[in-house]
């Protein structure tokens, strides 16, 4: 009887064995959460961020490179700080900053490192390095920071900073993680993918204390980091810096292009600031200050500002009217019958009209253009003519995005018949007499400096242009120029029609609307002045515009200059353009007198004259003064550029 109990016992043995095997089968074969858990806790993904590509100018001068800096990470659980206030003094932060950073870090994780301070320079790090030994839980990680040795081109380059929440959420391919750096605005954003390279991932085995124990599976799943490509731009840094200095105490833009290639040589947005300001760990402070500055230095004026082109637009009028057949080089118009005032004596042919910028002449040219279609009803004729006008002018890249390699280009406006239909509440309710201000580049036209420099380049090429662009290529070989920047865009205007216009432009500089000093010997500058009406905000002065190219035959450089509130285009803008062209062509400046004059001139509008300005409200001492304080920034800028008061430190060369 009792012997049979052995079967019960063996039965229990087998039952337990089977139960365990079932459990094992479940754990090991059916349920993979544990196997995932294993890779999570013993295999660590180490991300290697490659160096971002550097940026060079056309002569291989460095514009942007990377400086090694240190990011300081903190692991809250390990932190031992005997004296917090001494620590904060050393770190140069306030105790409340310290508390908030530590609070954030602790919230994220007590045991994982979080960022404590970003981008400590080598000098700062050297200062705290020894002291850091006494404070546990802080770990420096080497990183890099964009540095701008040329201190110029800030808006065109953009800046590199932490990725925003919005960008993080809207990426198509998940590449960026929280805290990653990304290029914002300018070339940094445009060529982000090439500049950043590709980060590498290494899988490291770690023991329970997080100590590395070699690579996992001998690196079979690792990917190597690919360094970012260097970007070669068409910028000529020497000329760029010179143009910067010419634009000091002015608001506006200077753009220069090599007509044959469309490469942008100079791109000044004034007032400018030192790009290094947006690359330090004081990024947010500096950014806020720039944002609040009433002169809006963060606007990249060459591509983002839209102005009425003023008389510079007469060039297009002259070209398309000739092509249409409504204008001959020999056509002469007087002043009589035109509602427009003019400062010339009248009776010009085309060449003379361009040279003297005769308003009535182009009034008549435009009228003939609109009515040059056999339609007797002036309303209908105007609509047909304007359509034709629009289509021909559009070929110059006006009214749409040209396609420059910056993310912030604005379209501008080239009015269509539909535009006026809408404005006047129906078709055939407007005619030439309503839109004639277009004839001299006023009215509803809106054009960016970029489009005008393109116009200058087109005329310099006598009929075609290549979309202006900053990039020249990637890496040493300079390959990788996008195909669109090799394509020639024809304007549909015959070569011969350019010649009288160019004659007129040369005449304008030599003995026309341009100030005599700007006719610098030996560069053969051709150009057209413009004075963009600017009474919208009750400003006293119009914007000064000049576009041109040099030399007359076989042009090497096309320039467009805008100086806001500087009045007559023949002086402020033309002088800057002439000096820039001379510096580029001769690599030196011989027109010392002109240079002196330009450097001395100051066209900064008073702050009270700026749009959006509010009169400071006198505050009673009880109220919180901080809210009502007017932006303290710009006063010193205008008076003395050498003195460096607090805010002037980051606004340079304006």
């Amino acid at each position, binding site marked *: 009887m009792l012997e049979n109990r052995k079967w019960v016992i*063996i039965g229990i043995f087998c039952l337990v064995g089977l139960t365990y095997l079932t459990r*094992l089968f479940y754990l090991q074969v059916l349920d993979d959460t544990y196997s995932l858990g294993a890779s999570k806790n013993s295999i660590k993904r180490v991300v290697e961020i490659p160096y971002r590509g550097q940026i060079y100018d056309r002569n291989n001068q460095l514009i942007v490179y990377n400086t090694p800096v240190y990011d300081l990470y903190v692991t809250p659980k390990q932190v031992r700080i005997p004296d917090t206030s001494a620590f904060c003094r050393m770190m140069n932060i306030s105790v409340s900053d310290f508390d908030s950073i530590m609070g954030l870090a602790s919230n994220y994780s007590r045991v994982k490192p979080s960022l404590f301070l970003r981008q400590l320079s080598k000098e700062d790090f050297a200062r705290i390095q020894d002291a850091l030994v006494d404070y546990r839980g802080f770990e420096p990680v080497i990183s890099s920071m964009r540095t701008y040795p040329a201190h110029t081109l800030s808006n065109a380059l953009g800046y590199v900073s932490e990725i925003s929440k919005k960008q993080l959420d809207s990426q198509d391919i998940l590449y960026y993680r929280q805290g990653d750096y990304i290029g914002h605005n300018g070339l940094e954003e445009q060529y982000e993918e090439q500049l950043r390279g590709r980060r590498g991932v290494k899988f490291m085995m770690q023991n329970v204390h997080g100590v590395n124990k070699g690579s996992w599976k001998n690196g079979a799943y690792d990917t190597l980091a690919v360094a970012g490509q260097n970007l070669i731009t068409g910028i000529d840094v020497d000329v760029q810096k010179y143009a910067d200095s010419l634009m000091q105490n002015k608001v506006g833009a200077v753009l220069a292009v090599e007509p044959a290639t469309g490469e942008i040589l100079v791109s000044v947005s004034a007032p400018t600031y030192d790009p290094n300001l947006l690359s330090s760990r004081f990024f947010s402070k500096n950014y806020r200050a720039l944002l609040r500055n009433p002169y809006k230095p963060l606007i990249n004026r060459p591509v983002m500002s839209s102005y009425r082109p003023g008389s510079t637009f007469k060039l297009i009028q002259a070209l398309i009217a000739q092509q249409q057949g409504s204008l001959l080089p020999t056509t002469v118009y007087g002043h009589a019958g035109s509602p427009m005032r003019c400062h010339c004596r009248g009776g010009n042919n085309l060449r003379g009209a361009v040279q003297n910028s005769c308003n009535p002449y182009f009034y008549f040219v435009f009228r003939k253009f609109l009515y040059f279609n056999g339609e007797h009803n002036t309303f209908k004729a105007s609509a047909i003519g304007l359509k034709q006008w629009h289509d021909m002018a559009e070929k110059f890249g006006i009214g749409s995005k040209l396609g420059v390699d910056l993310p912030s280009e604005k379209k501008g406006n080239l009015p269509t018949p539909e535009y006026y239909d809408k404005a006047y509440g129906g078709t055939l309710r407007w005619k030439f007499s309503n839109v004639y201000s277009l004839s001299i580049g006023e009215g509803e036209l809106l054009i960016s400096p970029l489009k005008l420099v393109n116009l200058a380049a087109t005329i310099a090429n006598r009929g075609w242009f290549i979309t202006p662009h900053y990039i020249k290529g990637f890496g040493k070989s300079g390959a990788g120029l996008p195909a669109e920047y090799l394509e020639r865009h024809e304007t549909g205007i015959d070569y011969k029609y350019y010649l009288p216009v160019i004659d007129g432009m040369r005449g304008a500089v030599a003995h026309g609307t341009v100030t005599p000093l700007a006719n610098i010997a030996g560069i053969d500058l051709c150009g057209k002045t413009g004075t963009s009406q600017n009474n919208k905000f009750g400003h006293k002065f119009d914007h000064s515009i000049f576009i041109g190219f040099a030399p007359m035959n076989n042009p090497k450089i096309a320039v467009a200059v805008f100086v806001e509130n500087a009045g007559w285009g023949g002086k402020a803008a033309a002088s800057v353009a002439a000096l820039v062209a001379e510096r580029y062509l001769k690599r030196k400046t011989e027109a010392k007198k002109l240079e002196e004059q330009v450097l001395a001139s100051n066209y900064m509008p008073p702050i009270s004259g700026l749009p959006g300005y509010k009169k400071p409200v006198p505050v009673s001492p009880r109220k919180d003064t901080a809210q009502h304080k007017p932006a303290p920034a710009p006063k010193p800028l205008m008076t003395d550029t050498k003195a460096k008061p607090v805010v002037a430190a980051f606004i340079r060369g304006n």
Partner: protein
Amino acid sequence: MARNNDPFSQNIDWLTLLLYFGCVAMGWLNVYAAVYSPEDHTSLFDMSTNAGKQMMWIGTTVILIICILVVNHTFFDTFAFVFYGFMILVLILVLFAGTNINGSRSWFKFGSVSIQPAEFAKVATALALAKYLDVPGTNLTKQKDLMYIGGIIVLPCLLILASNETGSTLVFASFTIMLYREGLPSWIPAVGITAAALFVLALIFPKLYIFIGIGALLGLVILLMPRYNRTVANLLAIGLVGIVMIGYVTGVDFFVNNVLQKHQRNRIKVLVDPKIDPLGVGWNVTQAKIAIGSGRLQGKGFLEGTQTKFDFVPEQSTDFIFCTIGEEHGFIGGLVVIALFIGLVSRIVILAEKQRTKFARVYGYCVAGIIFFHVMVNIGMTIGLMPVIGIPLPFFSYGGSSLWSFSILLFIFLKLDSRRTALTRR
């Protein structure tokens, strides 16, 4: 008789011997794998590591085995009580003169070698029990015999408990298997199992639910009872059982929350819910399961485990050695090990049943029970079916005391068994 004293011509049960050496060899390789460091390519024989030391322990064990096989079989029978008495003395001694390792004062330290007498107490107790039951006329249904047996088991238990070695104390519960075979009334293990089940239930569910469950169960029993059995006495008895169960559950609740020390309570609670605190109390269990689970069907391969090698699993060469097997050899490795052990204990039971003397039979069942209990608890805790109780996996875990004691335990039985076959042949 001279022939039987020659260890090399003994009638050893070769199957058991094979299973034994299989276990020892696998154990050794896994101890090596557990301490292996891919950086310095430790040698299997490096004496500074656990694997090297284990090699030494295996060597000395072989000597011990030869000694056991050489001595006369009557030696164990005759001196059973002497061993037992000696062991009790040692257990008392260790309480005062022992070295404190990991909070339990249960080790004797000789130079770099530590010996844990509790491991050997099992062997002595098994011999004493066999000796006691060998006397003709003992009957496990008799109260007097039960009391003596209970005394023999409880005495070393108390001493080991006093040295704070709860795990080794629980091992003495394994004698129930032998006692059951020897005629212990079935209700005693039944009550034991019910008590254990109620204990676990009391941890998982609120008391009230269990009370309702007990009530419903007993009500069902009464309902299914033949009408003529529903006497007042029987109903009272059932009521009494119910009250005892309810009292027990309440007691367990009180015991767990108020009597047990914090780490003991946590070990039990983690069994019920390992997610309580994966980085604190649940660490051992979670990491053990992660290690085993990551082995999948075939394992990561010998020396390729990441979890055990990099110290994620605590005690991986001693109590958690099964994790290394599970991680590096996968389900197949686990299957082999479990099959090996079940085969071993079943073989011992079958051999025990064949014994001519009651002494040998009782002892055999003790051996099977002890080994089985260790295996069940040890593997059970690594796969989350048992609370974390620090007892080694026989023959696998690193440690001299454990390997020696299990080998002695097993080979005394094999010696006794060889005598049986020798007699048969004659």
